[in-house]
C-alpha cells in the first residue's frame, strides 16, 4: 500500500497522471500527510533534472500582470492583464485560435504522415536560416482544411484548400494575423482545391513563430469591413520546413 502511494506521488511529480488523477491527488494530499510527504520527497529527488534547463528572460508584461494580480488592494481572484493592445476582432480570434496538432494517437492521415518530418524538426523556437514555412489549418483534429506555404526567400505565400467547405450563402475568408497586429485578409476561398497566391511584401516584420492563419465565415465576397466579422472555423500556425 505504501508502495502504491509512493508510485502515485512519483507519477504526480513526473507529470504523467491524467487531469482527473491529478485532481484526485491534489485533493488527497491535503488529507493524507504521508502522501504529501511522498510528493515532496519526489520533488526533491527529481529537482536536479531542472539543472539542464536554461533560464529564459520572461517579457516585462508578465511581471506587470503578476504585480497587478497580487497588489494588496486587488480582489482575491487573479486578474488577466491584456498581453498587448489589440483590436476586439483580434482578441476574439486569438481566444478561439487553437494550435496545429497531429492526432496524438497515431497519424492515420497520409497528409499528416507526410508532414511528420516537419513536425519532428526541432527546436520549436526558430532557427535562423529557415525560409520555408507551412501552416496546416484545420479545426479540431479533422482533415486539414488548408495548407499554407510561405517562402520568405521568394516572398510568396500560397494557400491550397483541401477540405474547406463554405456553408451555403457564405464565403470563407483567410486571414493572416501577425503578433499584435490586426488581421489582414488574404482573400476568400473558392471551392475545394482552389489556391490563393499572395506576396509576403505586405506582411511587414514577418515573425513566423507568432503568425496565425485563420479562416472565418463571412458574407459572400468576404467581410464588408476589412476585418473579420464572422466566426473562426479554421486556424493554424506556421511551422518551419527543413531545407
Amino acid at each position: 500500500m505504501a508502495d502504491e502511494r509512493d508510485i502515485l506521488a512519483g507519477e504526480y511529480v513526473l507529470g504523467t497522471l491524467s487531469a482527473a488523477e491529478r485532481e484526485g491527488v491534489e485533493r488527497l494530499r491535503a488529507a493524507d500527510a504521508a502522501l504529501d510527504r511522498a510528493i515532496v520527497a519526489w520533488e526533491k529527488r527529481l529537482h536536479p533534472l531542472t539543472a539542464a534547463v536554461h533560464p529564459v528572460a520572461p517579457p516585462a508584461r508578465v511581471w506587470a500582470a503578476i504585480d497587478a494580480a497580487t497588489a494588496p488592494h486587488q480582489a482575491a481572484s487573479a486578474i488577466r492583464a491584456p498581453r498587448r493592445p489589440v483590436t476586439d476582432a483580434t482578441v476574439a480570434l486569438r481566444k478561439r485560435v487553437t494550435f496545429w496538432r497531429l492526432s496524438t494517437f497515431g497519424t492515420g492521415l497520409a497528409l499528416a504522415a507526410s508532414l511528420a518530418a516537419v513536425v519532428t524538426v526541432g527546436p520549436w523556437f526558430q532557427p535562423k536560416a529557415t525560409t520555408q514555412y507551412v501552416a496546416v489549418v484545420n479545426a479540431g483534429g479533422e482533415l486539414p482544411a488548408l495548407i499554407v506555404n510561405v517562402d520568405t526567400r521568394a516572398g510568396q505565400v500560397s494557400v491550397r484548400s483541401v477540405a474547406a467547405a463554405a456553408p451555403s450563402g457564405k464565403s470563407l475568408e483567410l486571414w493572416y494575423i501577425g503578433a499584435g497586429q490586426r488581421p489582414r485578409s488574404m482573400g476568400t476561398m473558392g471551392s475545394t482545391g482552389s489556391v490563393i497566391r499572395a506576396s509576403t511584401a505586405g506582411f511587414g516584420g514577418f515573425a513566423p513563430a507568432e503568425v496565425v492563419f485563420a479562416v472565418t465565415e463571412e458574407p459572400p465576397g468576404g467581410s464588408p469591413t476589412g476585418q473579420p466579422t464572422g466566426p473562426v472555423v479554421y486556424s493554424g500556425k506556421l511551422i518551419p520546413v527543413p531545407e
Partner: protein
Amino acid sequence: MLSTGATDLAELLTATGAGDRQAFARLYSLAGPKLFGIVLRICRQRQMAEDVLQESFVKIWRFAASYRPEASPPLTWMAAVARNTAIDGMRRKTEVLFAVDEEGRSEAENIADPATLQPTDALDMRALHRCLDSLDVEQRSVVTLAYVDGYSREELADRFERPVGTIKTWLHRGLAKLKDCLGG
C-alpha cells in the same frame, strides 16, 4: 548576473510570505527566468508558458507564508509550483501540440547555469545522474522526457510505439529504482 545563494531565496520567500512586495519582486527577478525556462520546456508554446508563469508567481505570492525552509529548498518549492501549474494546464487540454523532437540535444549541452543553482545542487545532481545511469535506457528516457519535457503517458506511448501499459511499467520501475538508489 547576481548569484542566488539558497539563503537569499529562502529569505526572500519567507519575506514574501510576510507581505514584503520588494522581496517578492526580487524573488521574481532571481528565479523568474529559471522557472520560465522550466515551464517553456513543458508547455512548448510561448503564450501558454507566459500565462503559466504568471499564474505560478501569483500562487507563490499567495502561498509563500506556508513555505518551510526545513521541508524543502526554496527553488525546489517554487519549481514545483510552476511545474504543477504547467502540467495541470497541459493535461487539461483536449488537444495538445504534438511534442517536437529536440534533435541534437546531447548531455553536453545540458550545462547548468551556476547562477541559478542551490548550494546542495551539485551533490544532488551527481547522485541523481549516477542513479539514472543505473536505470534501463527506456526507464531513464521516459522519466526524463516526462519530468523535463512534460510528456504525457500517451505521448510517450506514441514516441516509443508501445502501449500505455508498458509505459506505465517503465515509469514505475524507473521510479522504484531511483528511490532505491537514492536511498529514499
